[in-house]
């Protein structure tokens, strides 16, 4: 490869670097990242470096041990392999030129993507692969990428709604926006959470927000996690001790095949759930559900509701 240009981004206070062909228009390819772009960055503080390589002969031979082929985004085309010193993330395609491969060191601090920028999916693929990298690297800096829809209240406090796909996380956020004053959507799919040394927990908007274009480079203090379950009634139950951890753990991103990363995740999460309220909301998709969860999180304030 000839010359490369470095692009710097900062998400949840962590700087990472994307190196690619100087001709590549990254702002056009990665529109959700423009608000996270960092100019005049110091390369030395990047926690991760991702290099996009085109037209090079990729590695041949054994891919490694197949660890996963489950992906909601890529369906049957996703493969994740573990090798002696690396992990390989593959997005298959029946046309060989459209196959993408990312080889990462075990801590994900360095990755090389073998791809083809003429592929119309380049932006989508790059964004997703950067999310994979950020999700794993962040664990080493007390950040966890979490599958949640999150609202910010009075630009100060956040509430993260968790649940399996199709449970109604986004719907519940919408209900807050409609019925609880002074709320805005912070992120609809993949916010990042962080615990600081003083025990304060923050939730950050990221360039990844699922189908909703909501890419806010903002943070608020995290007030609560609420795990949603569909029910023919509305009921909020506070989750304590081990139940608080079990309610949040399935929504967190960490590969299970690197024990160091996985332990870092459970370590951070154990501390986070000790400092943040966790609740379970069995609910209908109605206004009363939003009133109930907002009252449970913020208390019944007489001037609170419209």
């Amino acid at each position, binding site marked *: 490869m000839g010359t490369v240009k470095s692009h710097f981004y900062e998400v949840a206070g962590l700087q990472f670097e994307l190196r690619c062909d100087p001709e590549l228009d990254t702002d056009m390819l990665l529109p959700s990242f423009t608000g996270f772009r960092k100019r005049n960055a110091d390369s030395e503080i990047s926690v991760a470096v991702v290099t996009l390589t085109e037209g090079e002969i990729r590695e041949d031979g054994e891919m490694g041990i*197949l660890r996963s082929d*489950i992906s909601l985004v890529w369906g049957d085309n996703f493969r994740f392999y573990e090798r002696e010193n690396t992990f390989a993330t593959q997005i298959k395609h029946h046309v060989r030129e459209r196959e993408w491969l990312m080889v990462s060191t075990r801590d994900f601090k360095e990755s090389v993507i073998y791809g083809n920028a003429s592929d119309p999916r380049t932006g989508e693929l790059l964004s997703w692969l950067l999310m994979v990298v950020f999700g794993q690297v962040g664990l080493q800096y007390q950040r966890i990428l979490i599958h949640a829809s999150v609202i910010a209240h009075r630009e100060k406090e956040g509430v993260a709604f968790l649940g399996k796909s199709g449970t109604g996380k986004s719907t519940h956020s919408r209900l807050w926006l409609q019925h609880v004053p002074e709320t805005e959507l912070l992120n609809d799919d993949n916010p990042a959470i962080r615990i600081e040394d003083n025990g304060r927990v923050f939730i950050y908007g990221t360039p990844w927000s699922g189908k909703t274009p909501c890419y806010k480079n903002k943070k608020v203090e995290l007030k609560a996690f609420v795990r949603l379950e569909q029910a023919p009634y509305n009921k909020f139950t506070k989750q304590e*001790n*081990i139940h608080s*951890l079990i309610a949040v753990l399935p929504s967190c991103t960490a590969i299970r095949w690197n*024990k160091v990363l996985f332990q870092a995740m*459970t370590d951070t999460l*154990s501390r986070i759930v*000790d400092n943040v309220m966790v609740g379970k909301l069995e609910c209908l998709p109605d206004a009363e559900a939003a009133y109930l969860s907002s009252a449970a999180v913020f208390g019944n304030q007489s001037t609170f509701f419209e």
Partner: protein
Amino acid sequence: MRTLRQDLVLRKVGDDYIMVDPGQGMVDLSKVHTLNETAAWLWENLAGKDVTVERVADLLCEHYEVMPEKATSDAIALIQEFEAAGLFAT
């Protein structure tokens, strides 16, 4: 020699002692183990050692006011539970 798994980390969450055991298969079958205070104390004191009924019973007798027969039966029960939960190194 029967030893405790070294890859599991004991943590306190609220009032509970827990260990998260990441499943290694294609399907995520991660488990969360809960230990009571006694089991957690034993876990920390048995790290790296050969876990025998005698050793566990001795620890129980030293640390708690318990009769040797009761300590022995408790030790057997604990080892069986640890075994069933897959907490010993293979």
